């Protein structure tokens, strides 16, 4: 459950960022598309070792982790062992643990030498020093071998192998592992020895055996590196022909399937004009599918689930979802690791979610499978799969079919998986809410409150909340954006000032007013503070959104009843100024949105084009009879200021390779500038200073 305050916290921070990041206010933003096929858990090898070592020392003495650097800093103890302040050494001494102290003494000796060998220092070793290093390593090796106890047998065995590794005695390490270390009880130290053993195998040309060890350790990075040249059909076939049980095949198949399916995904999604590539991709898929079928049929592989799921997923990727899903279902029951079967199930979910017809069976399936996936999402791969499912498949599908609540609910669901702790909204959820129309938001708010929605929708948003104040603020802002100022008032009236003061826009709201015409000057707010957490807020004395709505309602009512041309002109001008200030190009953009960027457009569902409205009102003002010279030039100036539509000019390369200015005749901007210029020529002696000295107007030479 995410509480309101934490949501708000993130909302404020994303809004703060949005103020300065270009092209984000209207979304969409580029999201990663993660590889789907995962028969091996990645990123676990080193992380798991570090965690387990930390756990060992925490279990030994919890105070050690008061200084988390204690483990790493053992490398720098060197000859200062007796006077060392290292927490581990101090803890062992404090316990009078002579056995541990002796081990640590030997370990720090080794680490010192290892650091010297590894590091680049200005003191390059002499021959004598190199010889001493070797002697030291041999001494440590012998001492470690002579350990007769049981408690630290793994640690000492690791020291034996480490010293041989530094000495380059790879054969020695292979023998030691096979004859001694491999028989020791399981521990993190044994796993570290396995890694050294695998390296020794590799260094002595035993690549196949090394791959087996790396697979056993789930050292994915090493495996990928070793097999990099074989990630293609020919490589896979050759490897299979040499040894159908080779663990290397798992890595090769996984990489191949991901590369090929990813290629297919991009061809379908972005419609690249590359027929040769499309053909090559489909050929690869077909070749592999045929080969994988053969592998499964031959029965030589110990992991048919891998091959079956690979062919099923590639079939789905190639557009044969029905056949592919059936193949994946078969894979889920085949021999292999549990992860391989889980992988088949994830692939099936992806394919099903994309291809099956919507209906009660479909939603029931999704609910069951998404629930299962969420249960695995602590592991990064499954978390990424939830993101792929939500952002690449379900949200666009539901949005396209007009199921706005479903689309929003899916983004809510995945957001709580992406940030499982009380971290607030994801950027996607925030932008999704922001993109809703006022009507959509009301409907979604009802869903959150359990007042409507299907069982699947309710399941998706279970745990998601939205405070009344957030709803009112969002709804009021959306209604402003849609030009429904009167309707916005009751919502905005319920928004506490404190709530606004905690938002990133509060600093702008506190320092700007919509009552100044934008064309007569910009109201500067120092944007340097935008990205500094907690320093970008200001306490607002009033809710300017509410004041704006009330003013707009009043001005609109006055305009409707005004009959004198002069009044109509003045009211139209004032309204135009207000509309422009509240537009995304105005100083008071915060009235209609929560962020501002150079890439903004009229992009939200139902959003009114405030600039177009301002131009229309100015035209209305200019159409009134009896305008003074001062009024006319003011209205013309305002109109020419509004960057509505295309720019009035652009630079283009001419045939001589020179840049030339080209005027975009026919656009609002051009005509407005032209009208102002014509007026200025005709009334040269009677111009206001802002027109007479306008440098942009002077440069306008159509």
């Amino acid at each position: 459950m995410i509480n309101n305050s934490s949501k708000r916290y993130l909302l404020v921070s994303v809004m703060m960022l949005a103020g300065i990041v270009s092209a984000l206010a209207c979304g969409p933003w580029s999201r990663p598309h993660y590889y789907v096929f995962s028969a091996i858990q990645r990123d676990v090898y080193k992380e798991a070792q570090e965690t387990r070592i930390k756990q060992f020392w925490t279990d030994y003495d919890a105070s050690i982790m008061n200084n988390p650097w204690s483990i790493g800093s053992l490398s720098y103890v060197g000859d200062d062992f007796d006077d060392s302040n290292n927490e581990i050494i101090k803890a062992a001494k404090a316990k009078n643990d002579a056995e541990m102290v002796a081990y640590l003494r030997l370990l720090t000796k080794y680490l010192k030498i290892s650091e010297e060998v590894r590091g680049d220092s200005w003191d390059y070793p002499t021959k004598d020093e190199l010889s001493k290093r070797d002697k030291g390593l041999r001494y440590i090796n012998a001492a470690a071998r002579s350990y007769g106890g049981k408690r630290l047998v793994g640690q000492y065995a690791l020291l034996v192998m480490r010293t041989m590794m530094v000495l380059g005695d790879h054969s020695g390490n292979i023998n030691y592992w096979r004859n001694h270390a491999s028989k020791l009880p399981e521990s993190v130290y044994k796993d570290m020895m396995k890694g050294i053993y695998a390296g020794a195998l590799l260094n002595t040309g035993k690549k196949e055996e090394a791959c087996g060890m790396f697979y056993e350790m789930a050292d994915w990075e090493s495996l990928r590196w070793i097999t990099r040249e074989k990630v293609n059909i020919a490589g896979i076939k050759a490897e299979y022909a040499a040894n159908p049980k080779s663990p290397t095949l798992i890595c090769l198949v996984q990489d191949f399937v991901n590369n090929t399916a990813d290629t297919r995904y991009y061809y379908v999604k972005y419609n690249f004009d590359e027929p040769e590539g499309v053909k090559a991709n489909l050929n690869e898929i077909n070749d592999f599918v045929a080969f994988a079928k053969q592998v499964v049929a031959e029965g030589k592989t110990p992991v048919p689930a891998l091959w079956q799921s690979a062919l099923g997923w590639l079939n789905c990727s190639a557009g044969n979802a029905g056949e592919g899903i059936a193949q994946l279902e078969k894979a889920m029951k085949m021999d292999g690791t549990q992860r391989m079967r889980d992988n088949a199930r994830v692939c099936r979910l992806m394919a099903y979610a994309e291809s099956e017809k919507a209906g009660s069976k479909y939603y029931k399936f999704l609910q069951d499978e998404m629930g299962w996936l969420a249960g695995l999402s602590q592991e990064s791969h499954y978390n990424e799969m939830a993101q792929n499912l939500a952002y690449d498949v379900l949200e666009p599908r539901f949005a396209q079919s007009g199921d706005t609540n479903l689309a929003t609910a899916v983004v809510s669901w995945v957001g709580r998986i992406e940030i499982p702790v009380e971290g607030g909204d994801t950027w996607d959820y925030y932008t999704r809410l922001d993109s809703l129309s006022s009507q959509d938001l009301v409907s979604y708010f009802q869903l959150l409150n359990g007042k409507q929605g299907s069982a699947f929708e309710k399941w998706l948003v279970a745990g998601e909340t939205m405070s009344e104040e957030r709803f009112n603020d969002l709804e009021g802002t959306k209604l402003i954006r849609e030009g429904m100022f009167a309707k916005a008032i009751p919502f905005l009236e319920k928004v506490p000032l404190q709530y606004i003061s905690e938002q990133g826009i509060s600093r702008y709201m506190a320092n700007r007013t919509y009552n100044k015409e934008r064309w007569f000057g910009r109201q500067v707010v120092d944007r340097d503070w935008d990205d500094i957490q907690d320093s970008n807020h200001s306490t607002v004395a009033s809710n300017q959104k509410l004041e704006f709505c009330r003013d707009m309602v009043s001005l609109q009512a006055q305009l409707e009843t005004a009959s004198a041309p002069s009044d109509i002109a003045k009211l139209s001008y004032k309204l135009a100024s207000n509309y422009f200030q509240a537009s995304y190009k105005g100083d008071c953009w915060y009235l209609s949105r929560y962020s501002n960027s150079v890439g903004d457009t009229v992009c939200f569902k139902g959003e009114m084009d405030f600039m177009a409205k301002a131009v229309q009102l100015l035209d209305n003002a200019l159409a009134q009879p009896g305008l003074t010279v001062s009024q006319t030039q003011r209205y013309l100036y305002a109109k020419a200021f509004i960057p509505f539509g295309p720019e009035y000019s652009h630079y283009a390369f001419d045939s001589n390779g020179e840049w030339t200015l080209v005027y975009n005749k026919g656009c609002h901007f051009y005509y407005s500038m032209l009208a102002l210029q014509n007026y200025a020529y005709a009334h040269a002696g009677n111009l206001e200073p802002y027109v007479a000295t306008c440098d942009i107007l002077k440069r306008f030479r159509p």
Partner: protein
Amino acid sequence: MQMRRLYIITFILIVVATVAGCRKNAGGVDNPQPSAYYWRTVFSLDSCEKAFINDNGIKRLYVRYFDVVMHDSVPMPNATLRFDQPFPDGVEVVPTVFIMENCMGCSLDGVAAKLVDRVLQMNETNDVKGVREIQIDCDWTLNSQKKYFAFLTQVDSILDSHNMRLSVTIRLHQLATAPPPADYGVLMMYNTGKVDPKGDRNPILDIRDVKPYLRHLSRYDLPLCSAWPCFGWNLLYSGNQFKAFLYDVNLDEKSVYRQVAPGHRVVIANRSLPEPNSDGSDYTTVAIGDSVITVRPTANQILSIVDELERERPGINNQVVIYSIDNKNINKYDKQFFKTLFAR
């Protein structure tokens, strides 16, 4: 009368020959030898590389010993050479140290002495005999010139006490400024252009990038020899933007790359490759629509610029250094090319 005319003609011929001979050597280096750079982190020559040294009579190897980089705001050695093999007999080794330019932005107190001591110690520990010179390689600019030159003066002074000489690398853009204090320079005739953005020039060596600097050559007040590329790059671009160097890829894989012109391939499949990326990650993604441009100066391109250089500064090619000995690259050129190059 006829005898007198003969004397005069003979005299004129001798003068012309002498002047021509002097000009040939005026801009070159002392004791020139066919030479090569060795720029890897482990010294180990395979049979092909050994044969290359023998066949071309390489007598001098400029071997990268280590780099000096900023580490915790202090210049420190990095990527030190590991000696897995003795150097070939009869080949003079010139230990070469590459210094990152940003090292010039901090205190260099004692670094010159540390650098020389380290090189000497590396020689001693690894039984490298007959070293008479150290080379320093740095892409210095006007911003770092003063500090770099002061540093070189210190290195030179220390080397003097060991009866050793100092050489430096010179990049084309550095020709426009005063020469550094060294016994001679090796003019790097490679990496003359930029890889980013994509253009029509060969970033390794292109006469259009070289030409603007040639006018400085004749007056450049430092003995010079020349170093020439014998390598190529596979450059990955997304649009016109450079993404990565592709070192270890099979560009003949038809399902991934489609050749659209010589040296120009378009990527037709997404692949995650275990290749270091310019963003620091270990993997590079080649994506549909990317292009791979293979650049490698041809023998003719190189030789024509060699001649152009010789015209501007006679003698500069008396010693030719190739960059670098590596069987992946030297096999890409005809054997005769190297013979011609070293004979220039």
